[in-house]
């Protein structure tokens, strides 16, 4: 029986692999591997915590659990903008911890196999580029895939 459950779990994981949630910041389309995402919630009251980098908007109450929220715009070094009804929080699981990402708008879930994805060019300096795992072209649309590990690296250990 345990073998069966293991297989089911593996199948489920395999299902998620290669699929990406796309979202927009301004007119740029970004993707995050579905594997990392636990849910998408609407914008809600955020309690600010002093003493954190500006891109930490604070913490929210997610059904009794407290989760920190990061504004992706600020993390990527862009201008902050007022939240509207399209603004969403994508809850991401990283190293067994939950973090929310504020994005302008969630777009779609798309499958991308390896052939579609190209490594990002080594352009160096700009903030944001160093978080990318690949750049894909899906149906004529350019998607910048964010590497979650890299994205949160500065917030996780080691110091």
């Amino acid at each position: 029986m345990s073998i069966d459950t293991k297989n089911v779990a593996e199948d489920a994981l395999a299902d998620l692999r290669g699929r990406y949630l796309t979202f927009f910041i301004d007119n740029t389309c970004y993707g995050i591997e579905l594997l990392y995402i636990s849910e998408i919630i609407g914008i809600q009251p955020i309690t600010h915590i002093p003493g954190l980098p500006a891109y930490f908007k604070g913490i929210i109450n997610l059904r009794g659990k407290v989760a920190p929220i990061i504004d992706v715009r600020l993390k990527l070094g862009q201008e902050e903008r007022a939240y509207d009804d399209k603004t969403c929080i994508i809850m991401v699981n990283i190293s067994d911890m939950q973090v929310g990402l504020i994005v302008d708008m969630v777009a779609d879930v798309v499958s991308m196999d390896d052939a579609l994805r190209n490594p990002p060019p080594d352009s160096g300096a700009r903030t944001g580029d160093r978080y990318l795992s690949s750049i894909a072209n899906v149906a004529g649309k350019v998607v910048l895939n964010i590497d979650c590990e890299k994205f949160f690296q500065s917030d996780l250990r080691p110091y």
Partner: protein
Amino acid sequence: MAIDPSMEPMLEVFIYESTSLLEQLDEILLEAEKSKSFSDDNINEIFRTMHTIKGSSAMMEFTGISTLAHAVEDVFFILREDSSRLGSVGEQLFDLVFQASDFLKTEIESVQNSGEANKDPSAMIAELKHLASIMRGEAPAAAAPDAAPADAGSQPPPSGDPDMVRIRVFFEDGCQMENIRAFMLISQLKELCDKLESIPANPESDSTCCSEIIKNGLLLDLKPSGSLDDVIHSIENAVNIKTYEIVEDAAAPSAKAAEASAPAAGGEPAAAKPAAAPASPAASTPAAAAAGKVKQSLVSVNQAKLDQLMDLVGEIVTSESMVVGNPELRGLKLDNFHKSARELRKLTDELQDVVMSIRMVPLSGVFQRMNRIVRDMCKKLDKDVDLVTEGGDTEVDKTINEAIGDPFMHMIRNSMDHGIELPEVRLQKGKPAKGRVTLAAKNIGGEIVITISDDGQGLDTAVLMKKARENGLLTKPESEYTDKEIFGFIMLPGFSTNKEVTEFSGRGVGMDVVRQNLEKVGGTLSIDSKRGEGTTFIIKIPLTLAIVDGMELAVGNSVFTLPITSIKQSFKLSDGGQLVTDTDGSEMIMLRGQCYPLIRLHQIFGIDTQVTDLADGIIMQIENSEKVACIFADELLGEQQVVVKPFPKFLAKYEIKQMGLSGCTILGDGSISLILDANNLLSSYR
């Protein structure tokens, strides 16, 4: 060997019981080793412990455990007879018994994890036997009790007495209380016999032998005073007897009989039965019965259930606040409602206290384990170290208690291995040859502060710096590093100052793991060290699961909770008190002739608010054991009980606690309030 599902609950009890027994055993051994002798009480206690483990493990069919326990029991059996025999083996005995205790612990752990115990203790048993034979004198004469293994086979009716008869009696199925029935039968038969012994012995005092009697029957070795027929007749007439048989060939009884044999051997003159071993696994002996009597009225509870209970209580507290503080009730005159609400509040308070107290366990258990580690390391490292523990009665939450065991072990090992020098070196340095590691716990203002200090060589900042440089860990010019920051290096992953990896430390994972484990329960670790004088690790663990009474303070759009315990008073500036500004421009409040520093919450937390004039807001005077200060907020919202939640682990890198915030809490309306930490506020903003 798979465990029968029906044994599952028994397995849990077995694990629980054996673990606590083994812990006791360690305690006794350490004590005895210090005084280099066993008191009679200690010997009996160890004997009983081993006997119980032997019995219960045999019942669970863990033969490895039971045979080893048996071998240890044998050794202590000899000691019990004549404790002076300890002299002939001395230290060796302690080492061996400690090893045996460790073996049993790992086996029980493996039982817990996989339900199996397969390691072979035969080497250890051989050593124990060897030891036993030394203790008995070079030639283990027939006069000494033989330490032969349990399966020495049968227990024949004492030979040389042809009148002895062995009778096996089975009671009716399901007649219950077999032990009592056995006892009744025995007392009846006693009148008819010159000599009567039963297996199990003393069934009346131990109800656990019921199953044994059901399985193997009651064995009676008797010598009838009249004819055997009288006895048989009496058995036939006794109530609830299903069958009986006279075991003719005592030399070849069934395997079952062997298993059930000989509990009484311990009490019998050993000379009479050279081959009889105090063996019987599941059967009970007087010793086991005595152990049963001291059982306290304790219930062991699954921890997950306790966690759930705690969560539920937290929810109740929150929803109670939601009901009582419901905005829809505002402006209504509800005398009865408020009376009932107060009653409810009183009950929830009580409930909370009880639940909290259930979860609290003293630290002494963890401290005790450290004694053991220090002892072992002393031997292996040839160092002489005393472990001094203080405040073992400090109580912490169970989860915390579990989480800090490993970190303590690492830190003590570090202190012993790297900190304390060899005795010769210590003498050269003018220190006493005997090193000292102090483990002290204190409860200070809602935080448990535990210090682990040694009087060893201390940390060498130069070496640490060099190592950090080699590993490329430096992020700023070397001269800018403070001592504290340099000490902090040892908590980085992969950082070890020991040149060689030893059995105990040097791989550089230790302190990193320590820090991570402590952070899991919201604790912090700091290091203080003086070259040549020693190192101190300071651990601070908040009472994370606590529910606190707090005052809600509004500052701009934010709500803060200030624990009531740290509030001295609250007042408005207009009530008296005066703003004073010193030469640096820092503000102070003059109150009844005393000056207190003023902390403006909106300023230190960078919050936009309309209320910046002291006269418009509220001033709370806060205190800890050392200092008093005033904090300024916009408005006092009221009192509420809140459940403290730690900040998300994700934010662990940022030292929010240093900002004067100890955690957060979810208010009745679902919004989050940050909990102010008076200690940090007082120390960081002067």
